[in-house]
């Protein structure tokens, strides 16, 4: 493995601009790393030629005014971003072979910022999963192993599992993820990297395959907080093509980075101390509290009383929106078509039965049921009311604090197959991540340390709406103190 693949986006940017190495050398190093790591199953498509083409442009522009913020940086793109001319299948058989004729706004923004593309990243089908095991391409294997001498294959988390594994294994310096109920933060925590979900509306959803439109947000995953800030600046934009896009200038998050938290109040929600969570999770949380105090923050206890209702609320709203969004996969306009026996209606039902996997079918069924006549108010309207209360909890809490600190996930990475037979056990993975999603708030996971089995644990920061800067700054304060520089030993 080339030493270039060990570098952060920040280091690559500096070295490329200084002429220490060329963009082509960077792209070649990562292309080789991708090709040598197929046993991880992190990529659904490799696009080495696109990475090289962008690198050649960057090398040509290096000493000119045409140099762009991400010139020379190759990235991985989650498979649910539409990418022009490159398969974009959202991890699903129903979209096999779909080659968009356009770029999503976010991936287009990265391209315009000079970034190259290494390939498309594996994910849970339509982002529905927390272990990457629902992908039509098979699970991504985490580059991490337990240190117990066993060889159990672990999940990198999900749904952005390919994204997380790619960064952790040094196959890409940064990647895009999307987060509907933890799909950036939980995989970042499981693989010892950083990832941020910005405020709902910062990143355009246009060209991102829709799962639950009131929750879906794109965000970056990378090795450091600074790298996340660099990428997020390039990804975010106001986009008239997304009705919920925020018409606000994109802040200069990188320039605004500061780990001095004096004057900041950090809230610790008492409801996040839940039964059955391993002691090591609470220990890393306590360590995070100490680190933020050390950075100058004042720590206060807060209450988010409706926390325990966040997951059941999410598992009504997200499937409801999904059942509506996924109605478009009917075998007519793109993707798979199965003819069925007789009619057009049979074609729809046969196509959808053949193209969707078990978890997607389960969620479509739940969503269709809770939206159906007679049940709509009891389930969907009720959930939207509880969602109002969950959002109000945060509004009240942020009168007493500037940031909220919690664990990212209730465990370290688990083994493949361990939870697939029990949907509810799988859903519980996102117990700490989902409330911020329901409230549309910016939230980030940064690595805190390793557990007794040598697996990474994440620390989770939630900010006020539009305060990505506060979240990034607290993340930086933790990063500086955690000194997390562990990498999985290469076995792939």
């Amino acid at each position: 493995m080339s030493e270039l693949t060990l570098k952060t986006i920040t280091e690559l940017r500096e070295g490329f601009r200084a002429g220490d190495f060329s963009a082509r050398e960077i792209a070649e190093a990562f292309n080789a790393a991708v090709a040598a790591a197929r046993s991880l199953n992190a990529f659904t498509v490799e696009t080495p030629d696109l990475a090289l083409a962008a690198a050649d442009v960057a090398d040509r522009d290096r000493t000119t005014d045409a140099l762009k913020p991400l010139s020379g940086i190759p990235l991985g793109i989650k498979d649910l971003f539409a990418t022009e001319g490159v398969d974009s299948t959202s991890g699903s058989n129903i979209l096999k072979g779909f080659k968009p004729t356009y770029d999503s706004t976010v991936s287009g923004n990265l391209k315009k910022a000079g970034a190259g593309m290494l390939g498309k990243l594996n994910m849970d089908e339509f982002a529905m999963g927390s272990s990457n095991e629902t992908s039509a391409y098979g699970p991504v294997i985490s580059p991490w192993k337990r240190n117990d001498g066993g060889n159990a294959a672990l999940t990198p988390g999900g749904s952005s599992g390919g994204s997380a594994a790619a960064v952790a294994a040094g196959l890409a310096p940064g990647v895009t993820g999307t987060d509907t109920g933890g799909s950036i933060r939980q995989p970042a925590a499981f693989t010892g990297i950083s990832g941020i979900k910005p405020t709902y509306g910062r990143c355009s959803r246009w060209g991102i395959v829709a799962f639950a439109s009131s929750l879906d947000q794109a965000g970056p995953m990378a090795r450091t907080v600074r790298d996340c800030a660099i990428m997020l600046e390039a990804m975010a934009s106001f986009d008239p093509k997304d009705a919920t896009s925020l018409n606000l200038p994109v802040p200069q998050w990188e320039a605004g980075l500061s780990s001095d938290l004096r004057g900041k109040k950090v809230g610790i929600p008492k409801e996040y101390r839940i039964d059955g969570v391993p002691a090591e999770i609470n220990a890393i949380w306590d360590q995070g509290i100490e680190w933020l105090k050390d950075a100058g923050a004042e720590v206060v206890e807060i209450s988010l009383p409706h926390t325990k209702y966040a997951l059941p609320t999410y598992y009504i709203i997200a499937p409801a929106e999904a059942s509506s969004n996924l109605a478009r996969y009917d075998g007519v306009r793109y993707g798979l078509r199965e003819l069925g026996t007789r009619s057009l209606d049979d074609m729809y039902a046969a196509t959808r039965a053949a193209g969707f996997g078990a978890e997607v079918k389960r969620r479509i069924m739940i969503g269709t049921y809770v939206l159906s006549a007679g049940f709509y108010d009891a389930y969907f309207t009720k959930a939207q009311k509880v969602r109002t209360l969950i959002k109000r909890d945060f509004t009240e809490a942020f009168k007493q604090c500037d940031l909220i600190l919690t664990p990212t996930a209730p465990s370290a990475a688990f083994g493949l197959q361990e939870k697939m037979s029990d949907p509810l056990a799988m859903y519980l993975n996102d117990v700490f991540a989902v409330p911020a999603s329901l409230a549309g708030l910016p939230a980030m996971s940064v690595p805190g340390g390793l557990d007794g089995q040598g697996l990474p644990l994440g620390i989770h920061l939630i900010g006020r709406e539009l305060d990505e800067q506060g979240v990034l700054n607290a993340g930086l304060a933790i990063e500086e103190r955690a000194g997390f520089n562990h990498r999985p030993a290469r076995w792939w």
Partner: protein
Amino acid sequence: MSVNADQVRHVARLARLALGDDEIDRMVPELNNILGWVEQLGEVDTDGVEPLTAVIDNHLRLRDDVVNDGNVRDDILKNAPDAQHGFFAVPKVIE
């Protein structure tokens, strides 16, 4: 509330999912498990609470009533499983 096989079959029909009897039978307890779990929301007092409609306050924008797109027929048809004469083709729907 819980669902039986007939109700699951009805929901599958609404969702245009062709499910076999074995899949229906497998789904009945799975869906009941999830529905039983979400019913804990019944504990929450939501009297007088408005359902959330916009997670971040945002003003819906109007745009000028002008054509800003178009002439992309071939792009739109490019991924169709069956495109004929500039249209999406589907099985016959009239006798």
